[in-house]
């Protein structure tokens, strides 16, 4: 397979502008002849659907929730980056580009990242025009904050609900196009396959989640905006419904899956309280601005935190990283917490956390000042744990949060399957091996509002006048048959184990062996264990009810079945990448001080996997070599 990223030539600053000019256009009268299928209504899917409909395309948008407004993007708290330089603190498109390439540990494609930084400014303009109520200063101008250790203040936010407000902006734009008849919305509908006709994506197979009916839709292009796969770990900060099924089905039909092992573990989440734990809640990164992270120096110190004197506490981030202290990047903070836990120093009733302590900040600034900054987060913590963080330190621990890996796309955001585009968290494109805070919202909206609507025209213009493929075509019947067969198979098992019990077990294998730290040996074990568990799953899973009704167990079973295959590919990818970079830490590849050691000579590439039958070991590797013309790879150091 020949991988062509189709990166335009010329100076990076003008590439996107020039490329936009070079691309072929579809004239307005012809746009309505094209049907575009968009799967997903999060930031990426809603913004793309609305924008393409405004341009004149006929859009069909699908989501599994009861309303497009509920996509997982709604949960983003902290903010969205943009290189506006409104604070006059030296920010620029180039600096955002530079920070993102470096933050991604030199494993992202420069041209894409530059374009992302370039269109970031337009996103803020668009959102404000829609009425997104970003935080403002007294003078009426937009407020910014510094986020995730950035040295400039480029993060725009709407209280602790930035994702919600941006998504509602996009949802409202989508609603307007639904009213105009340009978007047809299909909520409570799950995509279960891609239909390929003559080597090109021509439609999808879906299941109506209310009636259970399996049917298909044809279109001139298919866009996946289906989010990330953190829920492979079972416990993550993602919404319960987040899954890999859409991406995985496309992968099975020919789309390459890139860098599946790049996952982001967020350092500040509330640790599980028991066996029944169903998801993990993120505590905003901003808490690290004032909270100090520590564990007792002695393993087994059972005193309440307030009774442990300062001299017997280990403020391990401040000790190990004097320059950045508690503000080291996410991957570094997460691994450091794991190290303490592995050394037997974790705290709390389940011995599964570290302290995030505000006592000093409260002493210095007063409780009111802390309440003004973090009041709603403290309330949320109290609701979940029953503990008052003004009095006792918070307990936190890292949790899976975001996946940088995803379907491979070229500069146009088209996958290796012609006619299939992938946008938002579902693609692999911009964050390399580690994503910076407040950059996912930016990427989802950049893809959806400002990139895909142009690049898709270039593709469609080449197919003007071609005959439409209808969903009566035999390829659609075959794909529907396959889907129905899979549903049947899941329902036919007559074991007694629930879907969730398998998902939990799968998640804990992936977390232990392909989580924050990985070894070759552990990954090999994991691949075998997962494959073995997958067999048991198909034999012994109990899915109650039938396929022709509202059946939430069946929905989950289908998703878990795909997670089993993805998990094996993650382990394989992590095993082949004999280096440490960003969120991927191989214990064999670290410096004497225990820091990640990259190997640019051998691994400066995106690992793009071709489906080989489901077992990780059968997948076929293709490499996209990465070139760094502008930002020269250096070692990230936070000492």
């Amino acid at each position, binding site marked *: 397979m020949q991988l062509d990223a189709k990166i335009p030539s010329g100076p990076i600053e003008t590439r996107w502008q020039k490329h936009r000019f070079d691309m072929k256009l579809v004239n307005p009268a012809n746009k309505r002849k094209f049907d575009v299928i968009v799967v997903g209504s999060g930031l990426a899917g809603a*913004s793309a659907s*609305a*924008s393409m409909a405004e341009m004149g395309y006929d859009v069909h948008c699908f989501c599994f*929730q*009861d*309303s497009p407004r*509920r996509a*997982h993007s*709604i*949960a983003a708290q902290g903010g969205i980056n943009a290189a*506006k330089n*409104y604070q006059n603190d030296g920010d620029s498109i180039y600096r955002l580009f530079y920070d993102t390439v470096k933050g991604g540990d030199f494993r992202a494609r420069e041209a894409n990242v530059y374009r992302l930084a370039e269109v970031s400014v*337009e996103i*803020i*303009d*668009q959102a*404000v*025009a*829609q*009425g997104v*109520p970003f935080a*403002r*200063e*007294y*003078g*009426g*101008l*937009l407020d910014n904050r510094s986020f995730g250790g950035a040295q400039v203040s480029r993060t725009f936010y*709407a*209280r602790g*609900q930035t994702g*919600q*407000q941006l998504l*509602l902006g996009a949802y*409202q*734009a989508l*609603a*307007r196009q639904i*009213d105009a008849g340009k978007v047809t*919305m299909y*909520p409570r509908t799950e995509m279960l396959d891609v239909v390929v006709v003559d080597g090109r994506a021509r439609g999808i197979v879906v299941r109506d989640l*209310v009636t259970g009916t399996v049917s298909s839709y044809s279109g001139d292009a298919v866009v996946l905006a289906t989010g990330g796969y953190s829920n492979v770990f079972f416990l993550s900060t993602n*919404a*319960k419904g987040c899954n890999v099924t859409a991406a995985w089905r496309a992968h099975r039909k020919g789309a390459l899956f890139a860098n599946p092992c790049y996952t982001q573990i967020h350092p500040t989440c509330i640790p599980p*309280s*028991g066996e*029944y734990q*169903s998801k993990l*809640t993120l505590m905003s990164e901003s808490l690290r601005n004032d909270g100090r992270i520590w564990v007792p120096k002695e393993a087994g110190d059972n005193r309440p935190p307030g009774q442990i004197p300062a001299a017997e506490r280990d403020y391990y981030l401040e000790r190990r990283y004097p320059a950045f202290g508690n503000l080291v990047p996410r991957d570094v903070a997460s691994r450091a917490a794991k190290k303490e836990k592995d050394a037997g120093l974790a705290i709390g009733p389940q011995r599964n956390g570290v302290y995030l302590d505000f006592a000093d900040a409260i002493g210095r600034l007063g409780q009111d000042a802390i309440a003004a900054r973090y009041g709603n987060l403290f309330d949320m913590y109290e609701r979940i*744990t*029953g503990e008052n963080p003004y009095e006792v330190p918070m307990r936190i621990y890292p949790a899976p949060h975001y996946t940088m890996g995803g379907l491979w796309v070229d500069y146009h955001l088209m996958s290796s399957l012609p006619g299939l585009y992938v946008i938002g968290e579902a693609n692999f494109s911009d964050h390399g091996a580690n994503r910076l805070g407040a950059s996912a919202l930016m990427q989802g909206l950049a893809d959806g509002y*400002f990139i895909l609507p142009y690049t898709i025209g270039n593709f469609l213009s080449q197919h003007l006048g071609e005959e439409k493929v209808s969903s009566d075509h035999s390829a659609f019947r075959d794909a529907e048959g396959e889907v129905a067969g899979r549903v049947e198979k899941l329902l036919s098992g007559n074991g*007694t184990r*629930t879907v969730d*019990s398998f998902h939990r077990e799968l998640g804990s294998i992936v977390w232990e062996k392909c989580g924050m730290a990985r070894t070759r040996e552990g990954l090999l074990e994991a691949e075998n264990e997962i494959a073995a568990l997958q067999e048991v799953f198909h034999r012994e899973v*109990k899915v*109650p*009810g039938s396929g022709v009704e*509202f059946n939430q*167990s069946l929905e989950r079973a289908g998703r878990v079945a795909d997670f089993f295959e993805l998990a094996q590919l993650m382990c394989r990818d992590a095993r082949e990448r004999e280096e440490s970079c960003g969120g991927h830490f191989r214990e064999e590849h670290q410096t004497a001080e225990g820091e990640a050691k990259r190997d640019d000579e051998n691994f400066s590439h995106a690992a793009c996997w071709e489906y080989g039958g489901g077992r990780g070991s059968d997948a076929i590797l293709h490499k996209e070599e990465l070139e760094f013309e502008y930002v020269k790879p250096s070692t990230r150091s936070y000492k």
Partner: protein
Amino acid sequence: MHLTLKIWRQSSPEDAGQLVTYEMPDVSEHMSFLEMLDVLNERLTEQGEDPVSFDHDCREGICGMCGLMINGSAHGPRAATTTCQLHMREFEDGETILIEPWRAEAFPVVKDLVVDRSSFDRIIQVGGYVSVNTGSAPDANALPIGKEVANRAMDAAACIGCGACVAQCPNGAAQLFTSAKIAHLALLPQGQPERQRRTQRMVEQMEQEAFGSCSNFRECEAVCPKEIDVGFIAMMNREYLRAKLS
């Protein structure tokens, strides 16, 4: 703790439905309400029974997907808290808990505790937006907006569209939901050009759906997990009158 659950079971919209009793002898106070239902569902599945269907997604109080009537109160006993954020420490050992779906004509039951809230989407579709095409926006700081105005707009925009307001209202009215969106956009300069048309179309769509009318019971405000205040309803009424008169 030992709890007795009385849960509404209804296999389909056509089914009459009934309350079924389940004993939960070993609930931990640290569980969330939905985790308790997860545990029940695991057991029902293992026993070969049909688990209880309920809607949920984020489990963080922001997507608006969850929503149960718990002992007759939308989202249960704790103020400013969605069902998914409610924890079992709010209940007493030995308690019986009544769990029902949102009860409103405009929200027909799909199955068990799952209802159809598409009427909310239809209200937004007729006008809950600013008509601005992608790519045509001026610089974001070209239009200063006072901090207080932006804050008040944000108070209204914080609505998660869960439907608790409708479920709790004795009339099943959707005034709080509709007014929150009308107010969010009417407060901001961006919302001015379409202000009257938006209000008129949204109110009329609301009236066409199967919602009841508002008689100022204010129960919506009391159960709203985002504490949206009824001041927005008064504002909507004024806006509507103005739109009708002009």
